[in-house]
């Protein structure tokens, strides 16, 4: 590849020029009289420069795997087709294509909707059918990750190809990917996601040629290709190891906390007047000793299995003795408590350690009677045992910390030393959303999931990842913060055109000679890297969807920090009832109007001598650029869905 050197030179120059520009901006250009716009603008520019630097690092060593290694014979492969509520016909079309995959395999429909007609149809075609069993009742379902984890426990292939319900695989998909697993450290091979129902001008920005291209190839160069949920082959052993590690870690954390929490509950109970009864006091003391002994055993290296077994047996015995004493009103007390505790177990023992703490605090605050205290200790031990009873499955191979289980899973795989491959060849063709509301829902979900992962498991301090890997994950997360910068970029020209406020001292030569080379180099870099791929749509949407990105950040933060629900929705795959678009993009519509009004006002103000010519021209150009970015939504809102015939006609001509 001759161009990789050119790309590196331009990338390095871009970053250097960017640094020169931003240093000047921070140190010599800020208009402090207008700090309210000057500071946000320089912060937004700094954000963008970091984005560019991370992009440069990404494409620094793009992988170039042109020919896939030959797939060895005799591997066992399960093909999973995940569905929730998609049209059965759509699922069956994918199933037929999956059955026709050339390499020997078993095809399974993973139906999270548990639809009997889906089962019948899948089995008629000769595919297997998996849906969740009774063990999932009343347990967190973990959406698609849960669906896949459930199927992993029902099947046995060494490798798993995951397909979304709408992703029609090509017959050679396994032949082209399995060979990479000759390297025993490779955990997964991701191939592009490409959509067949998207017209040339891609009004909804569905294709992601920059991501499924230079960005994934770049990440691959750093052994940090992302697993993207579909069109990927994974090694079962790698997933199971991840599940085991998660189980051990979670169990250790829970048991240790339960032992401490149980002692806190007991100490409170011993202060109660009822605890003066010598029998009760003796029992409480005994249980407290058992808990202390449990902690001691763990400290001295006992396994969690043995320590919990000892404590549970001892506490059980203590409770039996107490009940045998037939204390007055004891059974009524216990029944009431058990009811309360059932509720406690359900709500309190999610994935978040803070929730457990809060639940224990509530228990302690409840002023338990001695018998109640024992019962609650037992409840805690039951819930926080080596059996992971709050989950349907103790072993959960795919990560469940985010609605985008894929990114989180691949990050954990990389952190535990596995390798990954991005194979740049379209081996499955899917269906993209065909209207603006569905598209917005899908983008919101991706962004929410990514921000969730960033807040829950920040890659920058994740042990086991190399620094380039950390930065590759961080780069994607960072890019989802663009909504905040976009607001500033829209406000900038408005400040000048409407109010004559300039965020910099002056639009001097000093500004242009630093800004223009950086900007020009940046665009050259983009063109070089894209290698003919259409990236303009992506650029437009990364700014035009700023309300979506901001909402994703705020809702994900509220979810991770305060446990609020995300308002998660499954991406509709078929065109549903057409919803009106304007209510969904009103902030952008208002902004566009403001920008146009701004341009007119700017000219008038200039005419009256209220502002200078250069400032007006520069800001009008900026405002027009913003309007052009936003204009993408007009086409998106008017888009009536894909018309395959239009393409066929064009091909005939």
């Amino acid at each position, binding site marked *: 590849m001759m161009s990789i050197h050119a790309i590196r030179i331009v990338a390095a120059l871009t970053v250097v020029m960017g640094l020169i520009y931003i240093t000047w901006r921070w140190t010599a250009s800020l208009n402090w009289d207008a700090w309210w716009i000057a500071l946000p603008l320089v912060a937004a520019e700094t954000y963008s420069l970091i984005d560019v630097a991370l992009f440069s690092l990404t494409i620094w060593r793009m992988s170039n795997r042109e020919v896939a290694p030959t797939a060895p014979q005799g591997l066992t492969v399960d093909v999973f087709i995940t569905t929730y509520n998609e049209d059965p016909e759509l699922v069956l079309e994918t199933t037929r294509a999956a059955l026709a995959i050339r390499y020997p395999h078993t095809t399974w429909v993973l139906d999270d909707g548990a639809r009997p007609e889906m089962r019948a149809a899948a089995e008629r075609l000769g595919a297997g059918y998996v849906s969740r069993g009774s063990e999932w009742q009343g347990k967190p379902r973990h959406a698609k990750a849960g669906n896949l984890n459930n199927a992993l426990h029902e099947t046995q292939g060494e490798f798993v190809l995951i397909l979304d319900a709408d992703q029609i695989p090509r017959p050679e998909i396994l032949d082209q990917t399995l060979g990479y697993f000759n390297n025993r450290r490779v955990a997964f091979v991701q191939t592009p996601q490409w959509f067949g129902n998207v017209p040339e001008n891609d009004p909804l920005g569905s294709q992601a040629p920059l991501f499924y291209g230079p960005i994934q190839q770049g990440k691959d160069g750093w052994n940090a290709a992302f697993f993207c949920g579909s069109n990927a082959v994974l090694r079962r052993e790698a997933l199971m190891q991840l599940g085991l*590690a998660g189980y051990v870690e979670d169990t250790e954390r829970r048991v240790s906390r339960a032992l401490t929490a149980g002692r806190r509950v007991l100490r409170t109970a011993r202060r109660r007047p009822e605890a003066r009864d010598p029998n009760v006091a003796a029992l409480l003391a005994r249980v407290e000793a058992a808990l202390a002994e449990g902690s001691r055993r763990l400290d001295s290296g006992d396994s969690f299995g043995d320590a919990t077994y000892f404590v549970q047996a001892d506490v059980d015995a203590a409770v039996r003795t107490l009940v045998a004493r037939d204390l007055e009103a004891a059974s009524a007390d216990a029944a009431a408590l058990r009811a309360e505790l059932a509720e406690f177990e359900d709500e309190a023992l999610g994935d978040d350690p803070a929730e457990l703490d809060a639940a224990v605090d509530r228990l302690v605050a409840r002023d338990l009677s001695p018998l109640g205290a024992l019962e609650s200790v037992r409840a805690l031990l039951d819930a926080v045992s080596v059996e992971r009873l709050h989950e349907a499955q103790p072993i959960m191979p795919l990560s469940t910390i985010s609605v985008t289980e894929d990114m989180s899973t691949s990050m954990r795989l990389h952190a535990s030393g596995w390798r990954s491959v991005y194979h740049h060849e379209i081996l499955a063709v899917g269906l993209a959303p065909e209207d603006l509301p569905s598209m917005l829902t899908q983008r919101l979900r991706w962004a929410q999931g990514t921000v969730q992962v960033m807040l829950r498991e920040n890659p920058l301090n994740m042990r086991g990842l190399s620094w380039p890997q950390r930065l590759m994950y961080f780069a994607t997360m960072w890019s989802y913060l663009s909504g905040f910068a976009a607001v500033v970029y829209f406000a900038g020209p408005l400040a000048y055109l409407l109010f004559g406020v300039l965020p910099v001292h002056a639009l001097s030569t000093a500004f242009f000679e630093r800004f223009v080379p950086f900007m020009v180099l940046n665009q050259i870099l983009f063109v070089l890297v894209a290698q003919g791929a259409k990236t303009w749509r992506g650029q437009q949407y990364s700014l035009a969807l700023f309300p979506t990105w901001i909402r994703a950040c705020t809702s994900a933060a509220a979810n991770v920090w305060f446990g609020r629900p995300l308002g998660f929705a499954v991406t509709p795959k078929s065109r549903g009832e057409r919803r009106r678009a304007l209510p969904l993009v009103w902030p952008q519509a208002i902004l566009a109007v403001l920008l146009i009004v701004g341009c007119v006002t700017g000219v008038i103000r200039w005419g009256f001598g209220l502002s200078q010519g250069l400032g007006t021209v520069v800001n009008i150009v900026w405002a027009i650029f913003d309007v052009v970015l936003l204009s993408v939504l007009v086409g998106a809102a008017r888009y009536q869905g894909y018309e395959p015939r239009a393409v066929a006609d064009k091909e005939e001509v």
Partner: protein
Amino acid sequence: MKFAVLERNGFTEVSAHGRLNMISAPMLKAEVSRAIELGHRRIVLNLGETEFMDSSGLGALVGCLKAARQAGGDLRIANVREQVQMVLKLTSMDRILTPYGDVEDAYRNA
């Protein structure tokens, strides 16, 4: 993979012969579930003849442990070979399940 169930003094010994991997893991789970249904509560898994175990096998151990605990009993492992010892350590599973040296040692302390 072959299994043998043996009633011992105060516990039940389940021996597993062969390779415990993604293919045989469900068989182990079925075997232990059957033993539990028959009323065996305190189970020791004798891994002396288990020459290989992968993560699916370890997953099956967790499944068996859960089943035994929920029936009010326990599952312990004994007599592990070098490869199994290694994967237990590698996955930190030895922090959940103590590998006992001998089948007789498993329930000695409780």
